[in-house]
């Protein structure tokens, strides 16, 4: 039935549901699980944090995950195409998500490059015991102050060279495609990551002082539950941790076969992600307990997160522990693997979007996307001011990119386009875990309220003074300018016409899917003239 002339390429697909689940877990389990969750939980009441955390997971994380899956699977496209198929005017949402992924990919790669170098340094204890802090900022990054030197162009080879290698590896994975590249990479890296991390946790538990660390991590501080800030941080964390609302899960679920248990798969992904976080919390705090004992302080004095935890505290632990090198190699190796599986999912959002819009083949699109990104990544993050740029871009794109697009997307889809019933219907067609009114309330009411609260509190925090004390011109470019530019560019990209070879205009597979599922034919792609519409096909 399909028109013969333009039947170019089939949409790629994951080999099986399990490959999809593993890839989605690979995307969700990233650096944040390892270096962010343990500290967020510790600060938010330790064991008591479990309550807001589980609430956030069940009432926001999982519902938003289903929301993304439903959009990607129902409209079978990359983020811009899926939103366009939902409603023409919703396309900018997809491009906004794509552009957020562009920004994240550019700096995410360099953290992987650092972790790769630290895997090597751990084996040699290159930093020299007692010198971990000075080594990271000084010897390794050769950090300079942006207020003094501006955005530096001074190349730092020990960062730049591994960064090139990281880009080459991910370009190869991306060029191989969804099944042979992304799927296979996750099938190899995720089991490896799990085993490595499990060994790391067991080894950490045998360090002296480990139990004090676990005590600090799990001892509940019930008063924390009365603090709205703790609840907000639980929702914020779950939201970032699950990689929802910036196109990844929409893109990945568009590669699922037509008849797939979406919600059943989503539950496994969500609980696997949280399961990994609990494991990371145990491993990290056992190690911090050892560090506190070795330095004769309390766990509170050494607990930290993010770059400080990974590149200062952990090297200190590696220096001091017996068998520290093994801990270091496992920890930084795990960061590399968790980072790579997340980076490829971020890049796939961009590659899939351009493939759909231009109708190009996989390799050509991958190279067109990844080479310019690699160059920008090198230009900004293999120089002496990388740390300041990374810190600023990350902070702004998280709050005013990811969080903002999620807020706008749920409001538009739920309240302007009224598409939640359509998504419920689609989820329930195949899924083992049925959703209904409660899901619609959680996505349409609770999610906008929570995201709105988080967004406004971020806005207040970032406007009350210069972020981290950086100069105004610097924040104007890499902070505010960047996040506004993403929205403007998204509108411009939506205005550009779709190629006649693109999937928006010609997608026999999608038409067949719609007809098989008894959905309305798509106005743009429809190749079923038999459907009696009142007016003839538009020009």
């Amino acid at each position: 039935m399909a028109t013969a002339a333009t039947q170019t390429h089939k949409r790629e697909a994951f080999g099986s549901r399990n490959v999809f689940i593993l890839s989605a877990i690979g995307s969700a389990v990233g650096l944040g699980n390892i270096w962010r969750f343990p500290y967020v939980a510790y600060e938010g009441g330790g064991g008591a944090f479990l309550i807001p955390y589980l609430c956030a997971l069940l009432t926001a994380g999982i519902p938003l995950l289903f929301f993304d899956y439903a959009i990607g699977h129902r409209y079978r496209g990359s983020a811009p195409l899926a939103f366009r198929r939902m409603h023409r005017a919703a396309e900018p949402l997809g491009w906004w998500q794509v552009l957020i992924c562009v920004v994240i990919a550019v700096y995410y790669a360099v953290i992987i490059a650092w972790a790769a170098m630290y895997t090597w340094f751990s084996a040699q204890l290159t930093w020299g015991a007692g010198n971990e802090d000075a080594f990271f900022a000084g010897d390794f990054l050769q950090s300079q102050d942006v207020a003094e030197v501006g955005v530096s162009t001074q190349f730092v080879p020990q960062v730049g060279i591994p960064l090139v290698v990281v880009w080459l590896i991910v370009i190869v994975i991306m060029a191989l495609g969804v099944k042979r590249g992304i799927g296979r990479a996750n099938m190899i890296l995720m089991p490896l990551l799990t085993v490595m991390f499990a060994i790391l946790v067991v080894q950490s538990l045998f360090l002296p002082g480990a139990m004090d660390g676990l005590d600090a991590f799990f001892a509940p501080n019930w008063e924390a539950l009365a603090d709205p800030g703790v609840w907000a941080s639980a929702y914020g964390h779950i939201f970032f941790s699950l990689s929802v609302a910036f196109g990844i899960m929409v893109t990945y679920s568009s590669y699922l076969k037509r008849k797939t248990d979406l919600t059943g798969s989503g539950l496994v992904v969500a609980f696997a992600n949280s399961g990994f976080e609990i494991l990371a919390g145990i491993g990290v705090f056992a190690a911090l307990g050892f560090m506190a004992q070795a330095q004769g302080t309390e766990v509170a004095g050494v607990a930290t997160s993010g770059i400080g935890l990974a590149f200062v505290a952990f090297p200190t632990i590696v220096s001091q522990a017996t068998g520290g090198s093994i801990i270091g190699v496992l920890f930084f190796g795990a960061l590399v693997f968790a980072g790579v599986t997340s980076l490829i999912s971020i890049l796939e959002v961009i590659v899939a979007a351009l493939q759909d819009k231009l109708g190009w083949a996989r390799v050509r699109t991958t190279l067109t996307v990844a080479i310019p990104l690699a160059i920008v990544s090198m230009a900004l993050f293999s120089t002496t001011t990388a740390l300041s740029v990374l810190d600023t871009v990350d902070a702004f794109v998280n709050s005013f990119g990811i969080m903002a697009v999620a807020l706008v997307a749920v409001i538009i889809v739920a309240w302007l386009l009224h598409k939640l019933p359509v998504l419920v219907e689609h989820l329930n067609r195949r899924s083992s875990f049925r959703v209904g009114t409660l899901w619609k309330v959680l996505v349409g009411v609770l999610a906008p309220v929570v995201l709105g609260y988080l967004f406004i509190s971020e806005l207040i925090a970032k406007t009350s003074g210069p972020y981290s004390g950086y100069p105004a011109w610097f924040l104007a470019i890499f902070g505010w300018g960047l996040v506004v530019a993403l929205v403007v560019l998204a509108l411009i990209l939506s205005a550009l016409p779709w190629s006649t070879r693109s999937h928006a205009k010609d997608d026999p597979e999608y038409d067949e899917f719609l007809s098989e599922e008894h959905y309305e034919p798509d106005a743009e792609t429809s190749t079923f003239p038999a459907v009696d519409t009142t007016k003839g096909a538009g020009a």
Partner: protein
Amino acid sequence: MTPIAIVMMIIAMVTVWGGLIAGIVNLARHPEESETEPAPPVEL
């Protein structure tokens, strides 16, 4: 570790890892339907 910390640790493990196991069991009971999916169209 204090008893309350141990209790919280066990609750955390049981809820999250238990949730994961329950999710996997649920999925295993609903195997993929790919075998029944019609082959992709090959007509030219």
